[in-house]
């Protein structure tokens, strides 16, 4: 390929209308408390995985709300289910179940089951 000295930049905008929110819908059906989340980040500050990785449950829930499923699949498996986030959450969101259902949804999407 000829190198013209420039390349096409990919669009980094979140295209809300084109995204599908099936992970959010899947989690919501099993764990409605996902809608209680107010993105305070207490879960992420308590998270043992967040110390050494980019993992953040606060971010994952927003990604689900925006329908950014690829980004969810990239990081959702880093959770080791220690449950500190559930203890920390001020609104008693069932965080562990949310991560579990997100992983399940992500797996189902990769297997073309949903």
């Amino acid at each position, binding site marked *: 390929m000829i190198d013209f000295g420039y390349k096409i930049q990919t669009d980094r*905008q*979140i295209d*809300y*209308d084109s995204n599908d929110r099936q992970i959010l819908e899947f989690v919501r059906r099993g764990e409605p408390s996902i*809608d209680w989340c*107010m993105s305070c980040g207490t879960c992420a500050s308590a998270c043992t995985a967040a110390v050494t990785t980019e993992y953040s449950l606060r*971010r994952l829930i927003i990604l689900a709300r*925006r329908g950014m499923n690829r980004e969810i699949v990239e990081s959702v498996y880093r959770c080791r289910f220690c449950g500190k986030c559930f203890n920390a959450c001020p609104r008693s969101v069932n965080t562990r179940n949310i991560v579990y259902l997100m992983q399940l949804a992500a797996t189902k999407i990769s297997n073309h089951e949903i």
Partner: protein
Amino acid sequence: MKSVAIIGGGVAGLEAAAKLYKMGHAVTVIEKNDQLGGRLNQWHALFPTRKPSGPLLMQLKEQVCEGVNIVVNAHITGIEKNDDGFAIKISNNRLITANVLLLTTGFDIFEAERKEEYGYGIYENVITSVDLEQLFKSGNPILTAQGKTPERVGFIQCVGSRDEKVGNPHCSKVCCITAVKQAIEVREMLPSAEVFLYYMDLRMFGRHFEELYKEAQFKHRIQFIRARLSEAFENPDGTLQIRIEDTLLAKPLKMNLDLLVLMVGIQPQKKDGNLVDMLGLERDSDGFLKPEDQYTAPFKTGMRGLYCAGGITGPKTIEETLIEARAVAAEINGFLSRRKSFIGHEQFVMEL
């Protein structure tokens, strides 16, 4: 009998008038519009209870209908201070005198046209929170300008608030909870619509506000997105495209909306004929009337016998305005009683 003139027949003025009348004073309410009730006339339901505003408005009006002197359609042309109090000149060469003057003239609503980039008055599907409340009041269905039932409705916070470029550095305080209330009402009227609320901070300071916010998230599935809009665009079909920074993901986001509601802020009255300038009173850094002391003299203006309450000194909820009205009535009553006591202090000492 001592007399009190109250300029502004809204929530603060009516409540203070009723209380002062009960305390035995001669009270006159001077209102510039043709009816009493002020801003409450524009409102359909109250936050956070979602009770209709009608009964409160009715009660406020009823409690002044007997005994309190009401002057409507009154344009104030001049106010003179004398040893006895005040002489207020109004249109048609009428003069009202009073020992005490209470200012309850309220606030202005930010003119949404001034944020031209949001398209109010340019794009047909951009409306304000006041327009929406009046639509609720009319009982008509929510439709786009094209006559379609909206599938997506967005609420933009802080329009004309926390915006130094438009001269309003302050937070208007009531818009956050108003948006939550209105978003719920839209969802109830349009159960299949998606509703989004774009905020910089959600300031759920009042009693039961946080509960309504959680109800909006959980029961009504309103999507809260932390963002501030820079500009709205109109698509050829009349729908709107907005581009925002999703600040919690640190990424730009674009989406289409059928209806965009601008949460217009509360701002000080600065137009010609405003009483703060007419009386030469001091304004605070944000332009609202500056009380003598925020803590110890919140209803005093620096001029003897001249008091203030309600939205004239800053954005307030109806609850806060009512409390201020009752408090200022007690303070005025104290001031007028002290005036009586000049006759002789001993008359107030009871024989035991």
